[in-house]
Structure formats: C-alpha cells, structure tokens
C-alpha cells in the first residue's frame, strides 16, 4: 500500500513539474519574464565571461580583431555599393531609401552561446552602458548574425539567425523577389515563394527594405536550391547563411537608428507588445 502511494507520489511530482514547465512556455515574451531573464543572464554572464578570459589564448589577437571589424565594415559597404549598382542599372529611384551609409559598429565579445538543439542564442559583453538597445542588428564580418533581444547594463542577449524564432524579411539582390527567411534547424528557408519566381542557385539574399527590424542590404546568405511543392504552385528556397555565429568570438552590433515614423505607426512587429 505504502509502496503504491510512494510510486503515485513520484508520478504526481513529475506531472506537476511537467505542467509547470509547459505552462511557462507561452510566457516567454511576458515583460516580467523578460526582466527576470535579463537579470539572470546579466549576472551569470560575469561567470561565463571569466571562463572566456581563460580561453583567450585560443582567441584572435587584438590586431586580428581590428582587422575583422574593418572586414565587417567593408563587407557592409561593398554590399551597399553592389546594391546601388544594381539599382542604377535598373534605373530605380531611391527617393525613400533609408540612409544606411553611416553604419556604426560596436565590437562585442561573445561570452556565452547556446546552440544546443540547433536554436542559437548568444550573450555579448556590451550592454546599455555601451549604447546597445533592444532590436539592434548584430553582424559578423560576413553578414547578418542576429538581433539583440534583451539588454542589461553590461551584456546583451542576441537571438541568432540560426534560431527558428527569428524571421527576417529578405530580398533576392538580383531579381528583387521578396520573402521571409527563417531557420529550420539545418538551414535558412524562404517559404511559399511562387514557383515562377526568378530565384536561382547562387543568388545573394540580403535584408529587405520592407523589414521594420533590420536595415536594408545586410548580406544574409546565398541561394542553394529551390524546391517546388507537390501542388506545383509554391516552393521553398534554401539559403546558406553567410554568418556562422556559433563559432565567432567577436561580433558587431550595428547601431542602427530605426525610422521613427514607422515605429510610430506601430508597424515594427518586433517591438509591438
């Protein structure tokens, strides 16, 4: 009798714990949960930062770090120039084009990273004190690496591009076909693209001017292949991302000032509560 009761108790405890865990899942975007997370990762990041310091022997020297930053800036500028070139060829007007020529990059060290399960988050050693704000894009020397989702005084939590909860408005730089890219666990996928859309393997994918989160023309990846669905009308485009944030020791936060008019219209889905 008592053995049965004990076994029942074990299952009851398990059930309660599992229910509590599941009940917490929908509250991830709750402001109080976000505050709690900001405090938690802010404090623990001091521990991981100390471990990172010990590992510094394996990390790039100061000179290499500076060169990587220059590479990152040049990469963004080259892509911008390529964009301007294409637009000139197509004789597009740029009247309402964002002013993205003044990218200011803040170098940040990755002090913690979680890529288990394929869903990536990073913690950088730059926070409010350094002028970092929520929703600022993060890049590496190759392209878009993620977005800042939470900031404490000294640290910033970044949702990487290799995270299924990050959706990026993108455009094919050659054909100007728009779509939304998201991580599917093994690669970026632009879903539900019309089968007739002009997207070819090798095309460069960049952030779209329609994005209310990211500045336009940040390199995202390169088209690997297009898969047409069974019905033959729509397809998915597989994109290999340029950035590999899980292996980078340093990333750059783009101090991008969002368009206030768009924000005032509450179009920015990322910031909307």
């Amino acid at each position, binding site marked *: 009798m008592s053995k049965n009761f004990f076994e029942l108790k074990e299952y009851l*405890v*398990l059930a309660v714990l599992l229910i509590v865990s*599941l009940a917490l899942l929908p509250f991830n975007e709750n402001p109080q949960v976000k505050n709690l997370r900001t405090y938690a990762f802010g404090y623990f990041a001091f521990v991981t930062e100390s471990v990172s310091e010990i*590992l510094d022997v394996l990390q790039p020297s100061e000179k290499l770090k500076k060169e990587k930053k220059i590479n990152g800036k040049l990469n963004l500028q080259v892509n911008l120039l390529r964009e301007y070139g294409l637009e000139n060829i197509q004789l597009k007007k740029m009247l309402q084009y964002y002013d993205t020529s003044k990218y200011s990059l803040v170098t940040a060290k990755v002090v913690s990273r979680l890529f288990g*399960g394929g*869903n990536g988050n990073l913690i950088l050693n730059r926070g409010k004190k350094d002028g970092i704000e929520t929703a600022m894009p993060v890049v590496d020397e190759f392209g878009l690496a993620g977005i800042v*989702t939470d900031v404490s005084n000294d640290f910033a939590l970044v949702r990487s591009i290799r995270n299924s909860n990050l959706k990026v408005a993108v455009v094919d730089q050659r054909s100007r076909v728009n779509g939304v890219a998201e991580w599917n666990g093994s690669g970026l996928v632009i879903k539900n693209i019309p089968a007739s859309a002009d997207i070819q393997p090798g095309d460069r994918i960049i952030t779209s001017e329609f994005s209310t989160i990211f500045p336009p023309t940040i390199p995202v990846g390169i088209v690997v292949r297009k898969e047409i669905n069974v019905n033959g009308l729509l397809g998915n485009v597989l994109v290999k991302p340029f950035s590999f944030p*899980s292996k980078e020791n340093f990333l750059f936060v783009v101090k991008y000032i969002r368009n206030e008019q768009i924000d005032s219209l509450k179009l920015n889905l990322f910031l909307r509560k």
Partner: protein
Amino acid sequence: MRFVWPLIWFVVLAALQLTVVPMISIGGGIEPNLVLALTVFYGVRYGKITGSVTGFLFGFVFDLISGGLLGSSMFAFTIAGFIAGYYFKEDDFANLYSFNFLFILLYAATVSLFIYALIVYSNINTNIVTLFFERGILPAIYTTIFGLPVLFLKPKDVIR
C-alpha cells in the same frame, strides 16, 4: 551542504556548456549537454523525485541564464531526471559507476533531447525522423561520451 555541491557542479558545467562546448560542436549544432548529464547522474544517484526536481530546477536556471526558451530545458531535464531515477538502487551503486550508467545516460538523453527539439521546433514543419536522429540520438551519443568520467569515480569519491 546537500544542496551546495549540486549547485557548484551546475555552475561549473553550465559555464562550460555556454563557453567551451559550442567550440566542439559538430555538424551544425550537434553538441554534448553537460547539464543534462549531471541531471541524469543525480537521478540515478538519488531516485525519481530528486532526479525530476533537480532536472526541473537545473532546467529553469539554465533556460534563464542561456537565453533559451523558458520551459523547454525545464521540461526536457525533468523527464531525463525521472527516467534516470528508474535505475536508482538504494544502497547499491551498480548502475552508477559502471557501463550501465552510460546506457542510462544514452537512453535518458535521447528521449530528453528529442522532446526538447520537439518543443523548440514546434513552429516549424520538420521531418520528425530527421529531428529524432539529428537532435535526439546524435547529441545523446555525444553527451554519453562526456559521461565516461563517471566510470572512473569510486563510490567513496562520489560527486555529492
């Protein structure tokens, strides 16, 4: 003191998980889960209830400090702790300091990591068989390799 050692081990392994482990990941995110291995250890050592509660608490803190989806690791680690608790033997460490532990770790980690992947990828249409292999079995095997040091512990050197 009973709660201090698990806390110390958790802090050490969580710090390693978030700093060193990503450097040894293979194939785009297949990596060992040290905190999960610790949870399984406590499950086999102290039983189902302690294993579940330990997994729950480890998962809660780990979700917070890693920036992960709050509730995902909690759920997965709780199940791992409970499964491990099945192999608890009172006054007998036969399952703890032998190869049995590795099989228990492999089993618990496979189930736990697969469930974790199901939660994390719930919003994506992913092939469930691929998910099971890529996010369940492979990281579980990798995690099991990191359970090997337990074989070299003697019952009197027990990690408290």
